[in-house]
C-alpha cells in the first residue's frame, strides 16, 4: 500500500505539479526545478537604443544571466578605411557615433595629424574644440532625453530635443549638415565659421543653463527618479576599469580621469573647466556626471567664443597636399568623446591609404560591463542601465 502511494506521488511529482515537499538533493529536484524564462530583448525593442540585442534569463522579473549580442549594424568601417585615402575616410567617421559626429572627426584628424606631424592653425583648434563641445552637449542631451524616456519621463525627452534643435541649427549654420557634419579636415576645418555664428552660439550658452534647470525640476530631486536610479546598476571603480569602462560612465564611479585633462590635446590645456566626478557608482551618479558635463561644456564653448571674438580672422587650414602620404609608422591618438575614450590607431605604410586603421570605440567597451551591472536586478533596471552607459550602436558595431 505504502509503495503504491509512493509510486503515485512520484508519478505526480514527475509530472511537475507543485505538490509534495522538496528536499535538498531530492531525486525529483531535476524535474521540479524552477525554470528560467529566457527573453530576447531587441534588436527591435524600443529601449535598446538602436539594434542592441540582449538575451536575458529571468526568474520572475529578476535577471540571473544576460548576454549582449551585437553586430547588427556592422558596416566594416575598418576594412573600408584600408581602401580609402586619408581624406576620404573623414565622412565615414561621422557615421560612428552619429549623435556627436564632430567629436568623431576630431579623434581621426588628430590621429592623422600626429602621424604626419602637421601643425594646425590655432584658430582652427579653437573652432574644433567649440564644435566638439557643442557635439558633447548635443549627445548628452539626446542621452538624457532617451534615458528619461526609458524610465518613463516623457516630457524631458521633448525638452531636451528643443535644445538639441538649437545646437543642430548651429551645426547647420557652420557646416551645412545637421547630424552628419564632416566639418573637420586634416590640418584644420573645412571653412571658417560664418558671420553671426558666434553670436547665436553665445545666445545658446546664455539660455542653456536655464534650460538645465528645467530638466532638474523634472528629474534632479524627483522621488521616483531617485528611486529608479539610486543604487541601481552599481559598478565599482576597479571593476569598471577592468571591464574597459571609460568616459562619463567611469567618472560616475569616482575615477577622476578625463583625457581632456590628463592627456590634453588640441587647446584643452588652455581652457578652464572642471572634470565632473561623482562617486555614487550607480545610474544616478552617471546622470549627475553627464548633467554637470553639459554645463562644463557650455563653459568651454563660452571661452572658445571669447577667444574667437578676440582674435578674428586667420587661417583655419594648414597646408596639406591633396595627395597626402604620411610617413611610415604607427600612432594611437585618443580623445574624450561624449561616450568615453575614442581612439584611432593608424598603421601607415607610407602610401596614400592607411595600412590598418583600428577604431577604439567607447561604447563597444562600455557595453561589456552591462551584464555585470544588471545581474540581480529587475528587467526595468536593465533599461536604466543601458541608458546610463549611453551606447550608440553605430559606434559599437562600426
Amino acid at each position, binding site marked *: 500500500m505504502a509503495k503504491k502511494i509512493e509510486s503515485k506521488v512520484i508519478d505526480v511529482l514527475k509530472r511537475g505539479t507543485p505538490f509534495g515537499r522538496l528536499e535538498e538533493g531530492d531525486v525529483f529536484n531535476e524535474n521540479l526545478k524552477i525554470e528560467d524564462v529566457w527573453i530576447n530583448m531587441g534588436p527591435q525593442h524600443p529601449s535598446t537604443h538602436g539594434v542592441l540585442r540582449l538575451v536575458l534569463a529571468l526568474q520572475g522579473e529578476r535577471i540571473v544571466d544576460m548576454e549582449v549580442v551585437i553586430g547588427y549594424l556592422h558596416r566594416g568601417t575598418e576594412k573600408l578605411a584600408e581602401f580609402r585615402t586619408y581624406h576620404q575616410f573623414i565622412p565615414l567617421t561621422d557615421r560612428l557615433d552619429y549623435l556627436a559626429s564632430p567629436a568623431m572627426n576630431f579623434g581621426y584628424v588628430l590621429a592623422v595629424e600626429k602621424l604626419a606631424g602637421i601643425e594646425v592653425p590655432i584658430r582652427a583648434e579653437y573652432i574644433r574644440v567649440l564644435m566638439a563641445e557643442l557635439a558633447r552637449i548635443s549627445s548628452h542631451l539626446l542621452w538624457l532625453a532617451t534615458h*528619461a524616456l526609458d524610465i*518613463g*519621463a516623457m*516630457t524631458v525627452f*521633448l*525638452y531636451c530635443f528643443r535644445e538639441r534643435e538649437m545646437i543642430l541649427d548651429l551645426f547647420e549654420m557652420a557646416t551645412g549638415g545637421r547630424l552628419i557634419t564632416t566639418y573637420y579636415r586634416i590640418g584644420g576645418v573645412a571653412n571658417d565659421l560664418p558671420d553671426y555664428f558666434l553670436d547665436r552660439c553665445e545666445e545658446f550658452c546664455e539660455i542653456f543653463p536655464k534650460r538645465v534647470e528645467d530638466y532638474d525640476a523634472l*528629474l534632479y530631486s524627483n522621488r521616483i527618479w531617485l528611486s*529608479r536610479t539610486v543604487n541601481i546598476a552599481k559598478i565599482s571603480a576597479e571593476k569598471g576599469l577592468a571591464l574597459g569602462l571609460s568616459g562619463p560612465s567611469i567618472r560616475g564611479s569616482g575615477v577622476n580621469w578625463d583625457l581632456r585633462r590628463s592627456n590634453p590635446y588640441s587647446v584643452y590645456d588652455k581652457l578652464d573647466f572642471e572634470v565632473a566626478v561623482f562617486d555614487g557608482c550607480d545610474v544616478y551618479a552617471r546622470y549627475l556626471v553627464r548633467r554637470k558635463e553639459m554645463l562644463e561644456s557650455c563653459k568651454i564653448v563660452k571661452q572658445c567664443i571669447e577667444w574667437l571674438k578676440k582674435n578674428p580672422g586667420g587661417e583655419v587650414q594648414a597646408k596639406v597636399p591633396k595627395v597626402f602620404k604620411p610617413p611610415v609608422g604607427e600612432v594611437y591618438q585618443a580623445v574624450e568623446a561624449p561616450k568615453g575614450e575614442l581612439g584611432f590607431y593608424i598603421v601607415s605604410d607610407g602610401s596614400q591609404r592607411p595600412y590598418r586603421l583600428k577604431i577604439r570605440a567607447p561604447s563597444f567597451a562600455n557595453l561589456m560591463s552591462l551584464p555585470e551591472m544588471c545581474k540581480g536586478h529587475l528587467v*526595468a533596471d536593465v533599461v536604466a542601465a543601458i541608458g546610463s552607459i549611453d551606447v550608440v550602436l553605430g559606434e559599437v558595431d562600426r
Partner: protein
Amino acid sequence: MDVLMSDILTALIRIIVVFALALLTVAYLTYLERKVIGHMQVRMGPMRVGPHGLLQPIADGLKLFFKEDIVPTEGYRLTFYFAPILCLVCALILFAVIPFDAKFMISRLNIGLLYILSIASVGVMGIILAGWSSGSKYSLLGGLRSAAQIFSYEIFLGFSLMGPLMIAGSLDLVKIVEAQSVPFIVYQPVAFVIYLIAALGEINRVPFDLPEAESELVAGFHTEYSGMKFAYFFLAEYANMIIVSAIATIVFLAGWKGPILPGWMWFLIKMFIFIYFFIWVRATFPRYRYDQFMRIGWKIMLPLVLANIFVTGVVILFIGGY
C-alpha cells in the same frame, strides 16, 4: 404590460444616450490627452486632421478599423479574441450606474459602488487572458504584472472608498452624493489621496503604467494585438479613466451638487478636473519600478487606509455620524 414596455423603452434610450456619449468622450479623451500633453511639452499635438486636429480620433478609429487583424501563431485563438471584448464590456457596463445628475442615470442600484468594484475586478481577467494567450513572453510578463498590480490596488481602492461609505451609510451612489452637504474630501483627505494613487494604479497610468511600460515590456499585455482588438483595449483603458474620475467626483466631490450651473455640468467639470490631473501626472513623472510600486501599496497605503477606516469608525461611533 404597457408600463413594462415603456420602462424598457426609456431604459433603452438612456442606455443609447449614455453609451454613445461615453464612446464619444472616450474617443475625444485621446485627443484631449494628446493636446494637453502636447502643450505641456512645448509642441502642438495633433494639428493635421481637421481644424486643430479635431477629427484625429475619428481618423485613428478608421485606421484601426481597417488594419489587419493579426493573431499570433503561438497564441490561444479563443481567449485571444475573448480578452479584449471582456475588457471593453467590463469597462462600458460600469457606466450603467454612474449618476450624472440627480435623475439622469441608466439604473439606480442600491449597491452601486460594490457593483463597480466587482465588475472592475472581472475586467482584470481580460488583461490576464490577453497577456497569457498572446503567446509572447513580453505579454506574459505584462499580464503577470498587471494581475498582481490590479489585485493589490483594488484592495486599496475599495478600502479608500470605505471611509466615505461609512459616513454616507449607503452603497447607493445617489445616496452617497445626497449625503454630502460638505464634500467628503473635507472629512476624508487621506482616503482621497489614497484613492487617487490607487486609481492611477488600477487604470495603469503613469507613474504606475507597469503592465504596458513601453521601454521595458514593449507594450505589455497588448504587444501582440492589432487593429480593432487593440482599439478595444485602448477604449477600455480610457473608459476606465473616465469611470475612476466619475467615482472620485461622486464619492469625494459631491457629484452633481453645485451652485448656479445645472447638475450634469458640475458633474462633468469635476470629472474633467480629475481627468486633467491624470494627464498632468503622465506628463510629469517617470515610471516606478514594479517592486517599488508594490511596496508602496502594501507597506504604506494599506496601513494608512486601514487606520483611516478605524479612525472614521471611532468618530462615527462617538459622534453618531457627521
